[in-house]
C-alpha cells in the first residue's frame, strides 16, 4: 500500500479513536466524582431517597433524588403524550398525503424548529406559557405541564422526521397491494403502512424520550425546580425538579459530598438516557432484520 494511503487511514483511525476516548474519559470522570457519595449513601438510598437536603444547617445532610427521577420521567412522558399524536399525524401527512410543495415547506419549518436554541424556547415558556397556565389553570404556573409542553415542542421535529423516514421506507408494494384490494388510502395507512413502520416509530418515540430526559435549559426555566414529589402525585400543575435542573442549579456552590452527589445524579441520568438509546437502536435494528 502507498504511504500516503496509510497515513490517511491512520488519521481516520485516530479521529475515530478520539471520539471513543472522549466518551470513555467522560464516563470515567463521572464515576470518579460521583461514586464516593453513592458508596457512602448507598445506591438504593440515593435513588429512592425522598429527601434532598444537601446543605443541612442542623443534623446530617441527606441525598435522595427519587423525586427528581420521577420528575424527569414525568415531564418526559408528559411531553410524549402531547408530541407523539401530533408528530405522528404530521409524519403521516408529510409522507403520504402532502403534495411536494407542501412537503418542502413543512420540512423547512421543522428544520427551523430544530434550530431554535433551547434557552429561547425556555424564555418563551417563561414569559408566555407560565403566566398563561397560572391564569387559566391555577397553581403557580411553573409546573410539570409547562415543562411537558416546552419539551413536546422540542421533541416534535425528531418524532416527525424519524417517523416520516420510517413511513416512507415501507415497501411501495404493500401500499399497492392494499389499494388493489379496494382499500381506501386511509385504511391502507392504518392497517398496512403504520404497522409496517411501527418499529421505526417506536424508536423515534424512545429517542425523543431520551432527549427529553436529558434536556436542561428550557425545562429548568419553566418547571419551578422544587425537589419534592408533586402532591397529589398526579397534579400536573405542581412544580418539580428534574435531574438535569438539579445539577445546573447547585453546581456553582456545591462542595465535597454535595458536589459528588450532583455527579452521582449525572450518573443516574446518564444511565437512564443510555438505556433508552440502546432500546431505541434495538427497535430500529429489528426493523432492518425483518425487512426483505
Amino acid at each position: 500500500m502507498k504511504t500516503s494511503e496509510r497515513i490517511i487511514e491512520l488519521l481516520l483511525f485516530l479521529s475515530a479513536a478520539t471520539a471513543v476516548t472522549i466518551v470513555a474519559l467522560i464516563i470515567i470522570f463521572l464515576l470518579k466524582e460521583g461514586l464516593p457519595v453513592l458508596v457512602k449513601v448507598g445506591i438504593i438510598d440515593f435513588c429512592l431517597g425522598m429527601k434532598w437536603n444537601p446543605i443541612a444547617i442542623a443534623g446530617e445532610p441527606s441525598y435522595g433524588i427519587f423525586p427528581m427521577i420521577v420528575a424527569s420521567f414525568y415531564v418526559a412522558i408528559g411531553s410524549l403524550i402531547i408530541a407523539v399524536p401530533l408528530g405522528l399525524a404530521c409524519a403521516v401527512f408529510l409522507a403520504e398525503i402532502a403534495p411536494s410543495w407542501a412537503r418542502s415547506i413543512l420540512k423547512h419549518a421543522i428544520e427551523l424548529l430544530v434550530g431554535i436554541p433551547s434557552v429561547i424556547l425556555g424564555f418563551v415558556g417563561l414569559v408566555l406559557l407560565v403566566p398563561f397556565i397560572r391564569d387559566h389553570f391555577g397553581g403557580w404556573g411553573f409546573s410539570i405541564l409547562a415543562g411537558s409542553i416546552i419539551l413536546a415542542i422540542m421533541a416534535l421535529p425528531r418524532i416527525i422526521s424519524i417517523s416520516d423516514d420510517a413511513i416512507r421506507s415501507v415497501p411501495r408494494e404493500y401500499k399497492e397491494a392494499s389499494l388493489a384490494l379496494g382499500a381506501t388510502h386511509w385504511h391502507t395507512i392504518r392497517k398496512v403502512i403504520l404497522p409496517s413502520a411501527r418499529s421505526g416509530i417506536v424508536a423515534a418515540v424512545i429517542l425523543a424520550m431520551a432527549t427529553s430526559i436529558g434536556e436542561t435549559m428550557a425545562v429548568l426555566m419553566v418547571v419551578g425546580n422544587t425537589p419534592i414529589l408533586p402532591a397529589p402525585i398526579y397534579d400536573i400543575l405542581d412544580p418539580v425538579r428534574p435531574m438535569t435542573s438539579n445539577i445546573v442549579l447547585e453546581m456553582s456552590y456545591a462542595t465535597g459530598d454535595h458536589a459528588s452527589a450532583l455527579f452521582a445524579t449525572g450518573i443516574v441520568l446518564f444511565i437512564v438516557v443510555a438505556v433508552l438509546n440502546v432500546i431505541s437502536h434495538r427497535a430500529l435494528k429489528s426493523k432492518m432484520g425483518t425487512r426483505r
Partner: protein
Amino acid sequence: MSEIEIESRNLDLWYGSAQALKAITMAMPEKKVTAIIGPSGCGKSTFIRCINRMNDLVKDCRITGELLFEGTNIYGNSVDAVELRKKIGMVFQKPNPFPMSIYDNVAYGPRVHGLRNREELDRIVEESLKASALWNEVGDILDRSAIDLSGGQQQRLCIARTLAVKPKVILFDEPCSALDPISTAKIEDLINTLKHDYTIVIVTHNMQQAARVSDHTAFFLLGELVEFGKTKQIFELPEKKSTEDYTTGRFG
C-alpha cells in the same frame, strides 16, 4: 363469442410530457385470458395498470380516451377507483404479501369491505386458499407469517388474497417473473382453472407463457398496440412483420 368485459378506446397516456401509450384500442372478452406481450418498456404494464386505475398513484400521469368496464368508462367522473378495485383485482410482479399471518393476508380484503363475522371469514379464507391451490400446503399453518413462505407460495397467497374480494377481473402483471419454473407451472395451471370464473388479463415477457395460457394476445411495441387477435393466430400467422420478429425471438 363471449361478451366483452373490458374495452379500451383510443387510450392515450402520458407521464409528464412522455407519451407511454398511444391510441390503444382493444376489447377483452369475459372469462377468457388475454395476454399482453412485448419488449420491456413497451407500455404493457402501464396499460394493465390503467384497468384498475393504479396509475392514479403516479404523479403527472395523464390519460385520455376511454376504458370501459361493463360498459362504463372507468375514467368517468362518477367512478370511484376504490369501488372499481373491488371488482378488478391485481396480482403483482413481485409477490407482495403483507407482513402479517397467512390468514390475515387473505382476510384483509373482506375485512376492508366490512366483513367481521369470524365464521364467514374462515370460510372465505379456506375457499380462496383452495381456489389458489395453496390450502394443502398452508391449511394448518394459517397463523404463520406470510413472509416465511417460499416465493411461489407467496404469489399463490397473493392470488388467494385477490380472490377473497370476489372480483370479476384479475389482472396479472408479470406474475411469474420472480419465480422458478416449477412455481411458474403451478401459477399457469391456476390461471387455466381460474379463467372459468374470471376474466383474466396477463402481462408477460415470456412468449411461451402467453402461448400456453391465453386465448387472445396483444402485442405492444413502443406504446402502440401492433396486433391483437387469437393467440394461435398471433403466434402462427401474424399479420405484421414486427409481431413475427418478436414472437420468433428475433428481438425483444
